[in-house]
């Protein structure tokens, strides 16, 4: 058992550009871990999961940005911290689900270090930004030896910590679609203390016209091996007038779509029960 207080040895690589980072990934593939803020990589390192090489993006300053335009939407570079995203006015105004998932994630220190792209790449089933970005229909942009590749977040999470990222690809950016008229979103989570990881989290993104739900995406985390969409509940809501009775039907539909587990943070039973309430409240918050 490695010491949990000391990081095991690894070779740290510090590329200064995306091109250089991709070259290193092509060479070392799964022998290298890509690190941005380090809040996940270093902690898992102390638990003994380190690869022989760690590629830090600290000097790849071209990836340090959060950009927004009304027509192009939001673009989050791989070095943008949770705090950078939470501090961006346009994020709070246009993507409340993403804003909240970044602003209440971890602690002020880890928000100053950890990145939104990293939260998605880690593919923990309880990732808060991952959940919000799944509801917001984000896209992930990879740069690899074969060039650029864009993956819809729907296709990205495959299984427990298994993703569509190839081992020689670098996630450079996450894109969120431009805000359309009538689109609202919200995110909520249940934790013991705020700095804890989520027991359960939920995000919704809806288009509402005259009280009728035109389109909807409902995402949940920590209730399955990966962050998931609740398609059955979405189908119940789509095309319907949002009313207390439809919200009740949605609550009733949720438990059957989840496969939660008992673990140190909660029980499967609690996760299933609280999810029904959490999703309904999150929809209510989004349309309020």
């Amino acid at each position: 058992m490695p010491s949990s207080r000391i990081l095991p040895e690894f070779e740290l690589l510090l590329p200064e550009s995306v091109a250089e980072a991709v070259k290193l990934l092509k060479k070392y593939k799964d022998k290298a871990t890509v690190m941005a803020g380090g809040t996940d990589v270093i902690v898992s390192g102390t638990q003994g999961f380190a690869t022989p090489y760690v590629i830090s993006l600290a000097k790849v300053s071209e990836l340090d940005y959060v950009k927004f335009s009304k027509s192009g939407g939001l673009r989050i570079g791989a070095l943008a911290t949770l705090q950078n995203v939470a501090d961006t006015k346009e994020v709070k105004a246009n993507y409340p689900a993403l804003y909240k998932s970044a602003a209440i994630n971890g602690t002020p220190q880890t928000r100053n270090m950890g990145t939104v792209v990293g939260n998605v790449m880690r593919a923990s089933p309880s990732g808060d930004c991952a959940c919000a970005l799944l509801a917001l229909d984000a896209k992930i942009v990879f740069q690899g030896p074969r060039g650029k590749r864009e993956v819809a977040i729907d296709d990205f999470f495959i299984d427990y910590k298994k993703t569509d990222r190839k081992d020689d690809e670098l996630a450079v950016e996450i894109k969120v679609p431009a805000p359309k008229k009538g689109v609202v979103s919200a995110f909520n989570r249940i934790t013991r203390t705020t700095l804890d990881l989520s027991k359960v989290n939920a995000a919704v993104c809806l288009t509402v016209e005259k009280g009728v739900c035109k389109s909807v995406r409902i995402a949940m985390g920590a209730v399955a091996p990966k962050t998931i969409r609740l398609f059955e509940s979405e189908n119940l809501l789509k095309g319907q007038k949002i009313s207390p009775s439809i919200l009740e039907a949605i609550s009733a539909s949720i438990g059957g779509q989840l496969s939660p587990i008992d673990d140190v943070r909660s029980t499967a039973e609690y996760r299933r029960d609280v999810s029904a309430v959490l999703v309904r409240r999150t929809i209510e918050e989004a349309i309020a």
Partner: protein
Amino acid sequence: MSKHPITLTINDQEYSIYVDGHHTLLQVMRDQLNLTEVKYGCGRGECGACSVFVDDQKESTGRKVVDACLALAATLDGKKITTSRGLGKDGQLNEVQQAFVEESGIQCGFCTPGMVVKSTALLEKNPKATEDEIRFGLEGNICRCTGYVKIVDSVKKAQKVMSKKRK
């Protein structure tokens, strides 16, 4: 393992040193530079005992607080770092440190270096923080003695002193 040559400016003093790639800023400060005011609590970004300022031009205040246990020293080449020792000027405590003394925000003292750095950051970014904002802002810094009441009182005291000085 290759050594990385880096220069860190810690509390206005420049250190040009070689560090191992897998060594954290905390290890380098404590073991290589003997700056033991930065404490090793949990080593995984939960307790905040190793909180330090790192300069960051994207921040309105020009610097931000990080956990030194989660930052690899070699990634911080060229950065300015401030620990609790560097908060005051000319041997004087800063307003936050002075308030911790006056309000008994310290018991065993292990969390204090991180607490005063974090509280200074909090009041720099949000001088008018409410009690709720102070409590939310202090998350990530754990104290096992005080129950936080005296710490929150200390931050509020510092806030008062600082706002008087600005007038």
